[in-house]
């Protein structure tokens, strides 16, 4: 009870700080703050179709966040999640392209999930390999590979996979409808993605809590040297964690292709990989809190689409709020630990 109280007090404090900051920013931009909040709320939760739209953003965020929990648990900063998502999208597009001529499109649709997870996993494994064997810090390896993936996707869209006639930023040719993930026609939401994201959360929670993998990751994350003396091999676990993270991110990329855009576009990842890093940080690396944070972030992203139309301000306000939330949480956490240390000293 006491921890719950302390936790909620921290949350309220964070919310107040961020609310004041955002209101200030809105006033600087000359927009009425409360109207802006109202439009964000109504634009995200105002109708069933809007909620469905929010969930289509929630799915990739949650998948990426679940994957990141493995890497954060072992103490790795998998900033390469963005590129892993892109590679997942590329691999599943490659597979779906074989399905265009086929008489069994459902088989290719099913296989594309494996291809996506594989693509993300390979890209993450690559970063992990550079880290464990090459001595390249995972942040630099991941960042570098993100941009390489970005280069590959641009090359494919403008080169080998370009639309007949014109190559453009609008992406490759749209797949035939037989290769689309089934979706509920009224709200355009694919239940497959929803099930996959929920399953990812469950599997991650179970893996981290009840299996030797989770224990190993935690042990190495807490004290790499002690775990090594105990007989665990940090390098192998790091690769394993990276493969999990990449696999989930790749799956998210595959869903973007097969479930939402039905083609490959340059911005297929929509920065959801980077955003999911914020989600995990804000949820304090807790597997049960992360989906909630992801939902809130998705609401902000979708709700703020209304802002340019309604108030003539840019939709990037969502990103400002999301960043401010994480920063405020870090600041309040730091302030509290400082106070605790002072108390102990007195």
């Amino acid at each position, binding site marked *: 009870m006491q921890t719950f109280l302390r936790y909620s007090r921290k949350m309220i404090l964070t919310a107040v700080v961020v609310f004041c900051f955002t209101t200030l*920013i809105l006033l*600087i*931009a*000359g927009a009425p703050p409360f109207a802006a909040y109202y439009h964000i709320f109504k634009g995200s939760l105002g109708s069933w179709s809007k909620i469905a739209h929010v969930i289509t953003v929630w799915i990739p965020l949650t998948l990426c966040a679940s994957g990141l929990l493995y890497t954060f648990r072992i103490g790795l*900063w998998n*900033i390469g999640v963005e590129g892993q998502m892109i590679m997942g999208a590329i691999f599943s597009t490659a597979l779906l392209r074989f399905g265009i001529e086929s008489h069994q499109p459902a088989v290719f649709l099913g296989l594309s999930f494996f291809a996506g997870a594989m693509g993300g996993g390979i890209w993450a494994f690559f970063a992990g390999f*550079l880290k464990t064997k*090459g*001595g*390249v*810090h995972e*942040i*630099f*390896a991941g*960042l*570098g*590979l*993100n*941009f*390489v993936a*970005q*280069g590959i996707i*641009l*090359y494919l869209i*403008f*080169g080998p996979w*370009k639309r007949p006639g014109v*190559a453009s930023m609008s992406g490759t040719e749209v797949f035939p409808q037989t290769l689309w993930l089934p979706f509920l026609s009224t709200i355009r939401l694919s239940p497959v993605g929803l099930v996959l994201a929920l399953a990812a959360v469950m599997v991650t929670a179970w893996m981290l809590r009840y299996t030797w993998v989770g224990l190993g990751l935690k042990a190495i994350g807490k004290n790499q040297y002690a775990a090594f003396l105990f007989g665990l091999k940090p390098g192998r676990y790091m690769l394993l964690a990276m493969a999990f993270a990449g696999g989930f991110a790749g799956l998210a990329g595959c869903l973007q292709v097969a479930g939402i855009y039905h083609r490959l576009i340059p911005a297929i990842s929509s920065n959801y990989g*980077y*955003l999911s*890093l*914020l989600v995990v*940080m804000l949820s304090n690396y807790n597997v049960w809190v992360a989906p909630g944070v992801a939902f809130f972030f998705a609401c902000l992203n979708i709700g703020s689409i209304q802002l340019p139309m309604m108030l*003539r*301000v*840019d939709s*990037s*306000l*969502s*990103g*400002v709020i*999301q*960043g*401010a939330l*994480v*920063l405020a949480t*870090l*600041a309040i*956490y*730091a*302030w509290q*630990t*400082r106070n605790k240390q002072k108390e102990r000293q007195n």
Partner: protein
Amino acid sequence: MAWLDFTILMSSVVAGATPILLATLGETITEKGGLINLSLDGSILLSAMVAFAVAFETDNLLLGFAAAAIVGALIAATVALFSLYFGQSQVAVGFVLTLMARDLAYFLGNPYSRLYGSQVTPLQIPVLSKIPILGQIFFNHNPLVYLSMVLIGFCWWYIYRTPMGLRLRSVGEQPRASYARGIDPRRLQLFYAVCGGLLVGLGGASFSLYTKPGWGRPQGAEGTGWVALALVIFGGWQPLRAAIGAYLFSFLQVLGIYLQGWLPSVPAQVFQVAPFPLMIFTLLVMYQAQKETVSQWVGDKSWMKTFVEVFSGAAPSSLGKPHHPE
């Protein structure tokens, strides 16, 4: 005629390198002191927006540059404070600030989109610009370009030839030892983070007031911050090599425009990815060259030796590991 083409090409390489050169030098100084400022990409965009907005409103370019430098310094100071004094992960804070500053720039800069504002005016250097070819390439620009060129030498001189530079390197390598010698590593790291941030801000301003004049979404400076981070590593944390990297990148950008004519199926953006594999490769070679087996193997092969020497260099030993005196 061919010579004229060449000088114009090289001149645009020198001019185009200015913003990224400033940002790279700034980050080199910050990282030399042991702090990673990952917020570069956002800092550059926000300072670019502020520079354009201030210059547009006040009709004063210098004020625009000053405001941008302050923005860059403030963001860098935030990273440094969180990391050094509040004990938070500098990577986390830098990363959050990257995304947040970028979105803040888009949000606050919206009213200034696609407006026509003032730009830096060219200033020929009287005698030097008359030198054939070289004069055209190096001395027929504006004060900003000259400043960036002068700063390369100044940074090198400061870091390697002055007592202050020695202290800067010492806190980056051995903060505990410098602490024992009576230097406060945290204060010094904060100071150099702010200095680096000032330069990053100037880099951002030179985008919106010079190389890619104006503001909009997208501005065109997106991704530069990450390139600068890669170039610091490619430069082995040395200002001269980092500067060469910046010019190489600018050359690649200019070349990309020409290559587009020959390889129309490959968009220019693909060429701009090149610094990133190079960064990974540099880090890989640096790490491998430290191993005994590798250095023995390299030992008697002269071409391998030069190859390793080109890529060798080491990160400041305590880069990213702040010192907490307790």
